[in-house]
């Protein structure tokens, strides 16, 4: 039975293999260095994917305009995973098996990066996540890198912020149980906040994509917290803030980099005003590196101000190019070695050093929603 099934499958397989061979026969693989990218360009977290993709694209265009890397042009092959579980694996398999990329960039959400990481590790293709902050992502193996900080650091930063700046004693935590990112961030926040002498007033959960949070928010309100930590993504966070205000829950809400999107402001409007979140960089920071990047990005994408995801997408591309240069070859294993050896890389989002876990050691900034925009509050060093 199995044999029969196999022989049936063999014909279309061999056909597609033949097509694949002719498809590759153009010789383009010799004149360019192919880099794969997967991102959530459509779907619920489309603004994340779009931002990081635009940052990456800008970096590739700049690199190619300056003559490319090792005398070759870089070719970016982008796949959209539609913010859907399962699609990432398809996209990454295609990039590795069909397009023969030497490295992969992606993506913002930890859940989907965790889907791609085992595939890249197994195929021994270096993967650089621009913005996945869950520690598990790089724990997958020695081929997986990231150019952002990790959740223990982000959670710690927000816990210290709650204690020192908000002077909060009791915090309620509202976690998205569907997301690895949210659960990780909540865990590290709680540990640090309790260590700082604070108490967790209430812990409640929601499912990402829910539209009604009033049941949980009523419970949070009756625990009388000084603030609510919501480590969620922007669409859910906007609705949570609106419904919290409707229930008369008027304490500061704060969260992580999952908040940073213009959609948060569009949907949340006055309900998100005054709230805080930690993120990777502030577009209104004063360094030359940031100014040049913001200028170039605005010029390329019709006046849009780049957010943190765009900056990290940009950094991930330059970080890879730097690795390829130092490896002096486009061989995946050599690129991996060079990336792992990075001691100081000057990125838009701050100086990056790779630690032994292939996580970037760098600083975080805290932004506040003020007058319908994100305003810089403070920088926190590791």
């Amino acid at each position, binding site marked *: 039975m199995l044999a029969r099934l196999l022989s049936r499958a063999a014909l279309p397989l061999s056909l597609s293999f033949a097509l694949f061979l002719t498809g590759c026969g153009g010789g383009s693989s010799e004149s360019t260095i192919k880099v794969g990218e997967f991102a959530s360009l459509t779907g619920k977290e489309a603004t994340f994917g779009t931002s990081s993709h635009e940052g990456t694209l800008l970096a590739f265009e700049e690199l190619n305009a300056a003559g490319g890397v090792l005398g070759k042009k870089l070719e970016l092959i982008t796949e959209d995973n539609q913010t859907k579980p399962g699609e990432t694996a398809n996209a990454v398999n295609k990039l590795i098996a069909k397009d023969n990329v030497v490295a992969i960039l992606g993506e913002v959400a930890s859940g989907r990066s965790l889907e791609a990481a085992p595939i890249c590790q197994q195929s021994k293709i270096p993967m650089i996540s621009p913005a996945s902050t869950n520690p598990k992502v790089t724990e997958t193996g020695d081929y997986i890198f990231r150019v952002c900080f990790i959740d223990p650091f982000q959670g710690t930063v927000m816990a210290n912020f709650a204690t020192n700046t908000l002077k909060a004693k009791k915090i309620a935590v509202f976690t998205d149980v569907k997301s690895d990112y949210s659960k990780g961030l909540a865990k590290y926040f709680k540990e640090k906040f309790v260590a700082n002498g604070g108490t967790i007033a209430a812990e409640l959960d929601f499912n990402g994509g829910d539209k009604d949070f009033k049941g949980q928010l009523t419970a949070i309100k009756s625990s009388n917290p000084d603030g609510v930590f919501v480590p969620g993504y922007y669409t859910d966070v906007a609705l949570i803030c609106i419904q919290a205000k409707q229930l008369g829950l008027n304490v500061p809400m704060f969260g992580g980099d999952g908040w940073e999107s213009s*959609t948060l402001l569009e*949907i949340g409007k006055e309900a998100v005003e005054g709230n805080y979140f930690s993120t990777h960089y502030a577009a209104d920071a004063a360094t030359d590196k940031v100014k040049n990047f913001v200028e170039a990005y605005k010029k390329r994408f019709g006046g849009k101000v780049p957010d943190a995801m765009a900056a990290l997408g940009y950094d991930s591309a330059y970080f890879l190019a730097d690795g390829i240069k130092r490896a002096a070859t486009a061989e995946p294993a050599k690129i991996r070695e060079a990336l792992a050896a990075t001691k100081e890389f000057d990125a838009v989002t701050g100086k990056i050093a790779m630690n032994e876990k292939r996580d970037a050691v760098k600083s975080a900034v805290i932004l506040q929603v003020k007058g319908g925009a994100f305003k810089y509050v403070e920088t926190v060093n590791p």
Partner: protein
Amino acid sequence: MDWLLQQSINGLGLGSIYALIALGYTMVYGILRFINFAHSDVLMLGAFSAFYLEPQVSRLFGRESVVGAIMIVILAAGICAVLGMLIEFLAYRPLRNRPRLTVLITAIGVSLFIEFTAQHEKVFSAKTQFFPRLLPEHSFQMGNVFFNSTDLLVPVVTLLLLAAMWFIVQKTRIGTAMRAVSYNQQAASLMGVNVNRIISFTFGLGSALAAIAGILYAMKAPGIEPLMGVQPGLRAFIAAVLGGIGNLPGAVVGGLVLGILETFLGGIPWLSSYRDGIAFAILILILLFKPAGLLGKATVEKV
């Protein structure tokens, strides 16, 4: 005490939405003995119709005006009624005499078709968009209990529509014909009832209900996207079964029970992540002891 009252209001608001969607499911099931899975997508189309109508209508009647809001709801319900009839005509009518499973699978196909077409960049795109406010919103505070005008509006609209549906089905000529088709299509057509027209009308009515539910849902949580109907649609389907599918008041009771269960369970700190699990376990228990649903007795007249 405050907590109990607040959660009851929250649950009633959510449950009324489920109830309103469940009314549409039950309506179509009552006549055709078939679950229209595209119902939840018509709900989404209703919300998006209102989203695109709002700028035009508010230019005529002013922003957040009552007349404007009623206009938007009527227009969106009309658009969706036509769409519902079109779906029935194109996808279900050709399969009328095929096994029921064929139609069911087709319904799932129609649902997926609408969802994925709507997600295309050139249609609605998949991103969440802000749903404009249709009515001025007032907040009320009683002691420590907070609620707003939308929380009140939703149950009122649901009850009004339940009454209207009951009136149409029980007291009008077309309602009599609907009941006749529900009992026996062939016999009804022999008595001179135009079965095609009655089924079309039922779909139109069900889709108009879905559109109104979609708009109210969007008013409660002002972020709309092409998959917004999936989750409440599933809940409402379960609510319809819980209340006794085919039974109009049953759909409302089922919706309210489900909404209140979810809200109360979600509000218990150490249980909130098991909210849906427990809510559905309770539903399974109810159905084990009352397989026809809460109000679905054999003697109760089906729509």
